[in-house]
């Protein structure tokens, strides 16, 4: 610690030399400066999203489809209704697939697999899944469901690609929470004569629920922002389409398409769509944090 030496002079010989003190101050200043630098992009991104995105937000922006008409004035290019509905639908189906499977695998890892060799292999492969680039998931689904079946893009294929992306996040976060549940709880239920499945469904899962909701919401938030897996699975279209078996628009894909446009109005639509997407994701994050604060486990 670089506390100044007391005036009495009694401790003067323990004082830190000026050179060392200078170095300490310099290093601390550098660390603090780096921390500030790390937060600058966040401030800038949020500032530009708000300043550019709020301008294009309006009721008609949220309630009309993009027209595909990109060469005329702002009023004719339309809004992002199909993209919002598409994102909600695709992500909802992806969650419906990934959450039960993910929690099932996590329950198996904690309640049955434990430290067995097979469980180690499964954990390793889940880690492998975590590292796979999102566009490669898109390629996987493309090969299996589009080359393999000879059919075309569809919303549910995008959902499957996102589900693959969510799976490792759900499994890992659920596993961490399940491990936190004290063994005494399981043992007392077993001692009372409850079969294993009752212990899992009536004791383990309800106790873990609040903690697992947090991880699940974060996984959903991650999936909602992904563009690459949707490009060649759900494709893009202008019209609102509620049928998951057909081409489906989504916010990230809509933004990606609009970024490359030379028309200012279309780029502004991209900013508006980006603000909408970030707002949705931040909301999910916020809810996740509030729930995790309430949870007794995590």
């Amino acid at each position: 610690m670089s506390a100044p030496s007391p005036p009495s002079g009694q401790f003067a010989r323990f004082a830190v030399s000026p050179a060392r003190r200078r170095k300490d101050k310099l290093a601390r200043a550098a660390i603090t400066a780096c921390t500030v630098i790390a937060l600058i992009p966040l401030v800038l991104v949020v500032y530009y999203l708000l300043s550019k995105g709020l301008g294009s937000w309006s009721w008609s922006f949220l309630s009309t489809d993009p027209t595909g008409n990109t060469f005329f004035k702002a009023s004719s290019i339309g809004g992002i209704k199909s993209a919002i509905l598409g994102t909600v639908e695709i992500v909802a189906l992806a969650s419906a697939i990934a959450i039960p499977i993910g929690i099932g695998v996590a329950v198996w890892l904690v309640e049955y697999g434990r430290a067995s060799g097979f469980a180690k292999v499964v954990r390793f492969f889940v880690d492998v899944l975590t590292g796979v680039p999102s566009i490669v998931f898109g390629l996987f689904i493309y090969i299996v469901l589009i080359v393999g079946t000879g059919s075309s893009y569809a919303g549910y294929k995008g959902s499957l690609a996102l589900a693959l992306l969510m799976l490792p996040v759900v499994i890992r976060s659920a596993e961490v929470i399940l491990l936190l549940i004290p063994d005494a709880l399981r043992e007392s239920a077993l001692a009372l004569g409850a079969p294993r499945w009752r212990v899992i469904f009536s004791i383990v899962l309800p106790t873990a629920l609040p903690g697992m909701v947090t991880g699940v919401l974060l996984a959903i938030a991650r999936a909602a922002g992904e563009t690459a897996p949707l490009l060649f699975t759900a494709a893009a279209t202008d019209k609102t389409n509620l049928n998951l078996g057909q081409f489906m628009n989504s916010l990230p894909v809509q933004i990606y398409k609009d970024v490359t446009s030379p028309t200012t109005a279309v780029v502004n639509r991209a900013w508006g769509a980006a603000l909408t997407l970030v707002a949705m994701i931040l909301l999910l994050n916020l809810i996740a944090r509030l729930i995790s604060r309430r949870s007794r486990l995590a």
Partner: protein
Amino acid sequence: MNTAAMPGGDRSILARSPLARLPDRALKYGLTVLAGLILALIVYFFVRLVGQARPAFAHAGVFGFTFNNDWNVSGEKFGALPLVVGTLITSGLALLIGVPIAVATALYANELCPLRLRAALTVLVELLAAVPSVVYGLWGIFFLAPKLQPVEQWLADRLSFIPFIGGGSVTIPNYFVAGLILAIMILPIVSAISREVMATVPADHKEAALGLGATRWEMIRTAVLPYCRAGIVGGAMLGLGRAIGETIAVTIVIGDAPGLGKHLFGQGYSLAAVIANEFGEAQGLHRSALFAAGLVLFVLTLLVNGIARVLVSRASHPSKTPSAPQAAIGPGPVAGAVAGA
């Protein structure tokens, strides 16, 4: 437990009937199959990807495909070197810029920050991870890249004596901007892992350093950083894995020029970007080449992530390394950390 063979034996009062045991068995085997399914899925995908990539590899050879410097779609020539180099340059830059800042952020949060600010700081850094890739791309191409261009031109002019950095005219989308965006995107994960690893440094080590008269910085340098080295390297590798696989933001800000960029501030291409950009209209051999690019990307991220996982898991359980417990200030924790690596 051979009571089932003796009807009326005293254990039968406690034993469950076979029918009652059914849901238990069903659950156990059902879940086991589910877990096994994940393994099967990955292997199946990998085999299918190799199958789709085979024509491209047959055309130029695996080595030729990866290292030929010629990506010419209309000429049906697919040598992925410009893409591989673009991926390596941008993710290398991301590490160079992102890791020091991420580690400093973690140090600040763990060692210097007032306790009240710590939680807020952590949340803010994690929010960086909540911004979608495509939004970073949008912000990068319309705000960051144009604003940076004069600075980059100045740097390119001043540093023209260094090969590859200076000498050319700066384009708005370029390798450097892509690397910078990637640095921002890997910051949260590297910072989070560094913070986790720093939290495992025993308080004894830090207090001993301070007790011997070390300043705060000397304590960080002698007690915290050496102990965490393997973990920080692992975190950086995980960040590298992310940076290599990052697609959309890079596609938007790298310029998507199929040749090898002449210099750092010129346009280029990356493995992930080429897939996102060209897959929609690709046919035949071109499409197969893009699958092959995906395969190269997949294998590259597998290697990087595999090494990273080993480093991080060893660093977060330092008790498994034999020299860590008796390690003291000085060379002790260094030896522990190195043994961990």
